[in-house]
């Protein structure tokens, strides 16, 4: 009986983490808001699109040229809706796998990073800007993913 209890306890400790992960926070707790025109919601998910395939493309300005740096304030925001997150503060990390896509908290002060971390208090939002450096890219479509992670509670 002792052995069984221990086994059950083992499950008790290990199990909660995967169960929490299995809850699809992705759908039930939206924290990402696009701030048009270079970002929009695609099937409920934030998408940054600077091409004539964007539904917000106004009919001019087809993209970015090679060997150019563009910096955009306020591309999207992270919002901590406390009634949905249940957290008085969340810690958010946004990362890009490449220096082609730089990130910063708006407004731009000359500093950017491939990975930024910030806290969002209850019912407040933080605007995120993006810096695109197309040096060395060739003509055509450039597709990449950025990763957004959020935890309940303060950072660090």
């Amino acid at each position: 009986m002792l052995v069984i209890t221990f086994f059950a306890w083992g499950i008790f400790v290990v199990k909660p983490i995967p169960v929490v992960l299995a809850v699809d926070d992705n759908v039930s707790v939206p924290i990402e808001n696009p701030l048009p025109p270079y970002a929009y919601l695609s099937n409920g998910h934030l998408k940054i699109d600077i091409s004539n395939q964007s539904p917000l493309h106004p009919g001019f300005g087809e993209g970015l040229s090679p060997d150019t740096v563009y910096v955009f304030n306020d591309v999207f925001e992270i919002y901590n809706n406390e009634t949905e997150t249940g957290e008085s503060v969340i810690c958010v990390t946004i990362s890009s796998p490449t220096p082609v896509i730089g990130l910063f908290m708006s407004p731009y002060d000359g500093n950017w990073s491939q990975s930024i971390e910030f806290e969002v208090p209850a019912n407040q939002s933080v605007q995120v800007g993006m810096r695109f450096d197309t040096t060395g890219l060739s003509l055509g479509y450039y597709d990449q993913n950025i990763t957004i992670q959020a935890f309940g509670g303060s950072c660090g």
Partner: protein
Amino acid sequence: MMKKILGIFMLIAGIVIAVTASSASFAYFEADREVHIAIVPDDVELIDLVPLQPYAYINDNGMLVIDLSAANGNYWALVQQNITVGQGVSPDSIYVFEHVFGVSNHLWENVTICMHIDYSGSGAIIFFEGPYTGQPGTDELDVTIYPGETVEIGMIIDSDGLDAGQGIDGTLNFDAVLGECED
């Protein structure tokens, strides 16, 4: 005995799920989000550089090139039409070319920008905005470009002191910020 063990096991597992579900309002969020960018030639991008004369063209890499030599593809296109075209500028001359290229503001968010144009490289080339009215030209220009508008940039070449066969090479740097230029 086994049934009983299984019963305890199921009960504990059931409690675990119930407890976590009730506290799972927000624990962790991770998502990959798409970034989709069209890399396009200079003349169709958000802030675009458009050749307005055969002296300027967009090269295979999509970049604006100003070329007054036989290396310019437009030169050979004219040659093929049996048109006699000049192969460059001669020493000790001053050439003024109006609207060599245009800079347009095709940003989607309908904002005004101040474009700073900076030339670096061999001397002898200076630039001016709009029609030529005898203005001196400069190697640094600040021009306000309203949404949808195009400003035209002209070029003055002063080959004084240059020898035949000598080349002039330089780079134009474009740097724009939000808002009208300050005087």
